[in-house]
């Protein structure tokens, strides 16, 4: 089966992929590299954190029940809870925005006039996004494993693998929403905006619900971040099955995108 559309989409993003890989690797490495000094000043920092409101601590991934100065607590708060998901989601939203963007700029006009269905074009473009985000996630994982070993951050590799799987699927869920909105509108800006707003609002809902704020506790099940319990995943070293719900979101969004793109006019430039 020819996957020329997917391969071209990947080829177009070679430099992008290198840039993002370097950025993510550098970010992860630098954050983990501070572990020794963080550990050595844990008493002073602990006092400071104790004085913070619960909601602020929750925002930065320092939930109840896990010592923020433990290796798992540190890796969670510094990498997996906020920064890495956000970086991956920004990359994923950018990549998926290009699908609608190319249509918006008339670049898909000649592709859609080829003997290939709209479904096939969209699926191959989505496949490229999935591959790109997976590669970035693997880069993050490999960097985490190597740097953690170098600075004696004692978290099992299995924990990191499962946490990386969770963050990858979370990224697909958000990017999938962007794909669906782009498929419905053919507009890059709308697709990216909606996906970004969903990501940010979800993060805030889950964090503030964790802090026990009533209204957010009600909304919590709607947030994609609620189903991304990376702290528990890191602590247990086993997969968190709620990630399957995120996979379901990504799958449903992809299905919706396929239906939507087939029930409208393609945009003329």
């Amino acid at each position, binding site marked *: 089966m*020819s996957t020329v*559309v997917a391969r071209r989409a*990947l*080829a177009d993003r070679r430099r992008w992929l290198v840039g993002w890989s370097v950025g993510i690797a550098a970010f992860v490495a630098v954050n983990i590299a501070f572990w020794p000094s963080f550990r050595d000043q844990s008493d002073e920092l602990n006092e400071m954190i104790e004085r913070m409101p619960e909601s602020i601590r929750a925002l930065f991934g320092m939930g109840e029940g896990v010592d923020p100065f433990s290796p798992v607590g540190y890796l969670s708060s510094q990498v997996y809870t906020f920064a890495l998901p956000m970086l991956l989601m920004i990359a994923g939203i950018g990549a998926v925005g290009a699908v609608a963007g190319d249509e918006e700029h008339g670049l898909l006009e000649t592709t859609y*006039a080829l*003997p290939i269905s*709209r479904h096939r074009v969209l699926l191959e473009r989505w496949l490229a996004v999935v591959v790109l985000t997976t590669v970035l996630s693997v880069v993050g994982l490999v960097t985490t494993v190597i740097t953690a070993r170098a600075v004696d951050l004692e978290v099992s590799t299995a924990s990191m693998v499962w946490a990386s799987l969770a963050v990858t699927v979370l990224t697909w869920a958000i990017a999938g929403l962007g794909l669906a909105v782009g498929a419905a509108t053919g507009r890059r800006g709308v697709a990216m905006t909606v996906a970004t707003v969903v990501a940010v609002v979800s993060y805030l809902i889950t964090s503030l619900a964790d802090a026990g704020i009533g209204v957010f506790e009600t909304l919590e099940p709607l947030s994609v971040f609620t189903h991304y319990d990376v702290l528990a995943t890191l602590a247990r070293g086993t997969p968190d099955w709620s990630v399957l719900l995120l996979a379901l979101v990504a799958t449903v969004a992809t299905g919706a995108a396929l239906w939507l793109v087939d029930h409208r*006019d*393609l945009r*003329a430039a």
Partner: protein
Amino acid sequence: MAVSVCSGRAYGDLVERDLPDAGGTGTDAPAIVTRALTKRFGDSVALDGLDLEVRAGEVFGFLGPNGAGKTTTIRLLLDLARPTSGSATVLGLDPRRDGPVLRRRIGYLPGDVNLPARLTGRAMLADHAAVRGLDLHRPVDELAERLGADLDRPMGDLSLGNRRKVAMIAAFAHRPDLLVLDEPTGGLDPLVQQTFRSLAREAAAEGRTVFLSSHVLDEVQHVADRVAVLRAGRLVAEDRIDVLLSRLNRTCVVRFDPRPGMVPSAEVFHRVPGVTEVHHLHDGEIEISLEGPAGPLLEALAPWSPLDLATHEPDLEDLFLGYYGAEHAPAPTAPARPTDPAVAPAAPAVPDPASVTR
């Protein structure tokens, strides 16, 4: 992550074997049929009940001013857009239901040539060949040579004309049964325009159909067999190009010896069939508007020994004026005969102030 050219079948083999059962499209079956094809965008009507029939193997000109609905029609035929109502059948197939199967047999040149800026023409054409499962190296190289196309520079570095050449190669290379070309010669120099016309004629000579959309009469009149004229989403004329042109006013400027008695008066042309207007210009020149064959006029002119005769070919403006009139231009609801020019042949010509007739 280089994308290689698909090493599929040789392109010379493709025409018959690749064709799916066209659902009864024999050689006599029309290539395109639309019935009451309508497309609305909100409150605006882009295409209003288009009934069109394009015969297989002809070069069909699809004329109309910008915004008339030409590109909308093309996008409906390719299933890039969906009709609000009505139907279209292309090569015996339904554009929506049979989309990929149908598009295998179509070559499309879009009016707005938006191509990936960082990609070379060769890479894009290789992608297209791979999607089609064909080896198109040879026809691509041949077409590039004929058109003088540069396939090895990023397309973002190419001029509009050079990008259009690449898009033209993409449309022609797989020798499709139907070529759908939207404003194909914009930005091309005259020599390349000539090559394009040759390509279109060759395609038709091989029994393939060319659907050629343009807002410039000149772009289609030298190559099309028949034309349809679209205006404000409605079909206002459909006929052979020569018939259509012969119904239109052409303008001749005839120069005579300016001395008294050597320039014929307007009355000379009163009874000449086809002459609709006569204006005396200056220095022995007369401007004559003619509808239909030129023979009777030439016979009438001969005794006056004209020194020179220049004709102005009707252009799309004349065509539209002929069909709608200059001021009031109600869009007819059906293909119509040209409206008769306001001035009857026998009416005296309006004398030009600069007339030197004495």
